[in-house]
């Protein structure tokens, strides 16, 4: 890794971890875990599935909040308030700046995801000791748990690449947030929508419309593919080839977005 990238990443991590948003998110995560112990006993059965669903929801919400509030805010602030000048006035290329910033935020998000996942797992473990009816999911496996958390992280990285793209394109904090959240919602639901339409039971549309929808689905990132929590909560075996393809898909998508973002940022006027 070039010197510039690692230096930019280092100050981004420091700035990110000391950010109020980050501390707020972690505080909320602790509160949620406390709430979680009180919610679980309300479910007489399937406590394992509820635990997995809630836990993964925590990771998603916290990760999403960090990507939106930290990722976009730090990047647009850099351009608007010209803090980027303290970096670009050094012999550091714009490419190194964007990659360093992305890597730094990726580490920040990773730390947050690990903290929240750890907190949730710890809370669940305490739960099994305190609450009699709470049991781990059937066929529980640490391996599947780790892979499932990793894929959640990967989908957050993809979303962060989307956030970077919009932040460079619009340089408006609110527009970028709006677009990124939009992509998140579409990316999570488009596959389901198409499946429902294809089934033809509830909605009927013309084949042209379906074709358009399918084409659109190619442009938007398919975020629902990264959701592996069913395998964890029902103790199903992981479909390895599909998991492998999903990872490759995520990495390709991030790389393509990175190329577009760099192309835009290199031409950006910083005044």
């Amino acid at each position, binding site marked *: 890794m070039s*010197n*510039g990238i690692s*230096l930019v990443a*280092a*100050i981004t991590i*420091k*700035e990110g971890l*000391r*950010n109020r948003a980050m501390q707020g998110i972690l505080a909320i995560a602790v509160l949620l875990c406390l709430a979680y112990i009180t919610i679980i006993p309300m479910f007489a059965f399937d406590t394992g599935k509820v635990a997995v669903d809630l836990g993964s929801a925590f990771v998603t919400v916290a990760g999403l909040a960090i990507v939106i509030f930290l990722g976009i805010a730090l990047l647009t602030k850099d351009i608007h*308030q*010209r*803090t980027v*000048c*303290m*970096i*670009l*006035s*050094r*012999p*550091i*290329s714009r490419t*190194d700046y964007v990659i360093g910033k992305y890597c730094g935020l990726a580490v920040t998000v990773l730390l947050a995801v690990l903290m929240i996942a750890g907190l949730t797992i710890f809370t669940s473990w305490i739960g099994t000791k305190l609450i009699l009816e709470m049991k781990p999911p059937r066929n529980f496996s640490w391996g599947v748990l780790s892979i499932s958390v990793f894929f959640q992280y990967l989908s957050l990285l993809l979303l962060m690449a989307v956030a970077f793209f919009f932040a460079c394109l619009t340089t408006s904090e609110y527009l970028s947030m709006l677009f990124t959240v939009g992509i998140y919602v579409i990316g999570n639901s488009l596959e389901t929508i198409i499946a429902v339409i294809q089934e033809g039971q509830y909605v009927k549309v013309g084949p042209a419309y379906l074709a358009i929808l399918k084409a659109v689905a190619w442009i938007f990132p398919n975020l629902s593919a990264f959701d592996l929590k069913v395998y964890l909560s029902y103790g199903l075996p992981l479909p390895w080839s599909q998991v492998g393809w999903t990872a490759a898909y995520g990495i390709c998508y991030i790389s393509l977005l990175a190329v577009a973002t760099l192309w835009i940022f290199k*031409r950006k*006027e*910083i*005044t």
Partner: protein
Amino acid sequence: MNLIDSPIHLHSVEKSFMQGFSCHKILHGISLSIHVGEVFGFIGPNGAGKSTLINSIMGFIQPESGEVLINGVAPSVPQSRKYIGYLPEGPRFYERLTAAELLLFGGRASGMSKAKVCEAMDLLLDKLEILNAKDRVIGTYSKGMKQRLGLALSLIHDPATLILDEPMSGLDPIGRNLLKNIILDLKARGKTIFFSTHILNDVETLCDRIGLIHQGRMLYCGDVKGFKENGMGFEDRFMQLISTAGNG
């Protein structure tokens, strides 16, 4: 003149900005060559185009036409900035870093070792009288302290050329005096200094040459003595040149 003798070289630089739906030309064919070891004052009223020109030198913006060279290299090459120290107008930093962390980043990014930066840092912060705030986060700094820190950041790697955009602004009289002495000291050590200002105090005593820019046009570029034609005061001459240009 040989290009290597000129740390900053501009040739008929033109730049326009979109303002709303119309395109405004901000720089009209600016040509300028800074000599090694001189103090060059770039003066002009607010909105004259000083920062725009400095931004083109630093590679933050791309002029439509003309040539910009830093030590003979285009600003699009990151290495062109290796021996340059830059102070932005009203500098802003990552608010949650401490001054020490910021300076360490700056020095390391310009190719210094960690030990070297730490050594230089204390001397510099002491000289700028903010050593006691070294380990405080920058968010707690006052405007003047940020300006001083910006100066420290531009000087940390002991660059051969300094580009300072409005270095006096935000500083109290003590700070201005400090800056004046620093500039004279740097000059004595053979550094090249290019600074912009709309405050004319001290320009006369500090600078070897000055450039006067108004509405994106160079009205004067040369030594201070030549500027003060027929016994006119510095400020009067400044006003005269600008008002005649405005009328013409």
